[in-house]
């Protein structure tokens, strides 16, 4: 990696971040659990079974945005990451890094959001930490959460499980969170009724797994959007994934905002959506289960896993309504608005 310093692009969820993780973090830590490449690490607790553990840090600016706040994100993000391993999510920790001068009333609002989200998800926050840094050393409030849960016997979800013939589903409309946050950014502001979709999806995953016991994997398409998640699956499984553009649910307002700014909705972050890969014979059941679960009313089947043609690398492609195909790449760096 030729970069000498950390760049904003390293945090954007796309190819640059992948390089940083591979070449700096995995290079040093390289545990078998980490090398699986899934959102939660699953490890053995001798005598007890397996636990899944995940952590995440939340640095979003602004901390309050349409439909949510950093607190709700912090709880939902980690609950969802743990849930993607198939675990029953139980306990969360949360650490706060607070900037001197940050209004306590705002902190109370954030913390209340966290309590509400935890209640909704059925998890308990059991431990925490507080640090305060001088004015200017943090953006108001940074939150770090970790979550644990037990993984039932026989459940082995992984992004490396996808097989040709499997079906790809999403639990709802894409791009809502990223566009909601974007709409408040200085220099880009626009008005929209779009709200962040931040939501705990552990109940939705549980319902989908009941209906599709041989589900291969789940993942929430956060930074980098659907494109990042599907590319991660394709790489890990050594397959091609093809999605039908017309089948992917996107709200008109999100489409309008993306067209105005030159964004690809498939690369915009989501905070309350799941991508699932299930065997074809369980796809319909998984779809119905998602649609009946909280936050899954717009779930859709969007594509399929295919065998790779000889000589081709793992990739994701989009099939348009007129039968053309194009590659869907991971983001490089941050997605920037354009006028050309």
């Amino acid at each position, binding site marked *: 990696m030729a970069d000498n310093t950390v760049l904003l692009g390293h945090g954007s969820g796309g190819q640059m971040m992948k390089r940083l993780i591979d070449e700096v973090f995995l290079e040093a830590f390289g545990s078998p659990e980490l090398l699986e490449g899934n959102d939660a690490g699953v490890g053995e607790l001798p005598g007890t079974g397996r636990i899944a553990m995940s952590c995440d840090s939340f640095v979003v600016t602004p901390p309050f945005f349409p439909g949510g706040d950093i607190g709700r994100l912090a709880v939902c993000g980690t609950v969802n990451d743990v849930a993607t391993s198939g675990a029953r999510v139980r306990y969360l920790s949360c650490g706060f890094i607070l900037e001197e001068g940050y209004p306590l009333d705002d902190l109370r609002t954030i913390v209340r959001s966290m309590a509400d989200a935890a209640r909704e998800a059925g998890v308990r926050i059991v431990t925490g930490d507080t640090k305060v840094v001088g004015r200017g050393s943090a953006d108001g409030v940074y939150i770090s959460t970790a979550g644990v849960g037990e993984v039932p016997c026989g459940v082995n979800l992984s992004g490396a499980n996808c097989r040709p013939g499997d079906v790809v589903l999403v639990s709802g409309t894409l791009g809502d969170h990223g566009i909601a946050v974007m*709409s408040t950014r200085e220099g880009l502001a*626009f008005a*929209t009724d779009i709200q962040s979709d931040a939501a705990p999806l552990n109940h939705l995953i549980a319902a989908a797994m009941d209906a599709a016991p041989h589900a291969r994997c789940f993942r929430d398409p956060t930074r980098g959007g659907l494109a990042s998640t599907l590319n991660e699956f394709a790489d890990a499984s050594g397959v091609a994934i093809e999605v039908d553009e017309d089948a992917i649910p996107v709200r008109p*307002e999100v*489409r309008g*905002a993306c067209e*105005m700014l*030159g964004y690809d909705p498939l690369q915009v972050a989501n905070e309350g959506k799941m991508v699932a890969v299930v065997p074809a014979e369980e796809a319909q059941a998984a779809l119905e289960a998602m649609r009946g679960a909280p936050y899954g009313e717009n779930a859709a089947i969007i594509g399929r896993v295919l065998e790779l043609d000889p000589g081709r690398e793992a990739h994701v492609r989009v099939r348009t309504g007129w039968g053309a195909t194009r590659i869907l790449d991971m983001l490089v760096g941050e997605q920037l608005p354009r006028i050309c």
Partner: protein
Amino acid sequence: MCLAVPGKIVSMTQDGSAVADMLGARREVSLRLVPDAALGDYVLVHAGFAIQVIDPQEAAETIALMRELDELVEEELPGAAGDRA
């Protein structure tokens, strides 16, 4: 160059600007380049400016023309239907 999207003018201000609605995403745009634009018009929005009023008549006619020519496809190009994915 350049990215411009159609938006409907949903409100107008005194100072030569308006709010354009693009499928529900709304943004203030300057009407300085299209001083005759009116409430309810569709405009092309580029970099915060309306650069042209879109002619709904032309839009409809273009599509109608293409759909008409469409009907000639089957006659002109036997086997073209095989290209329908």
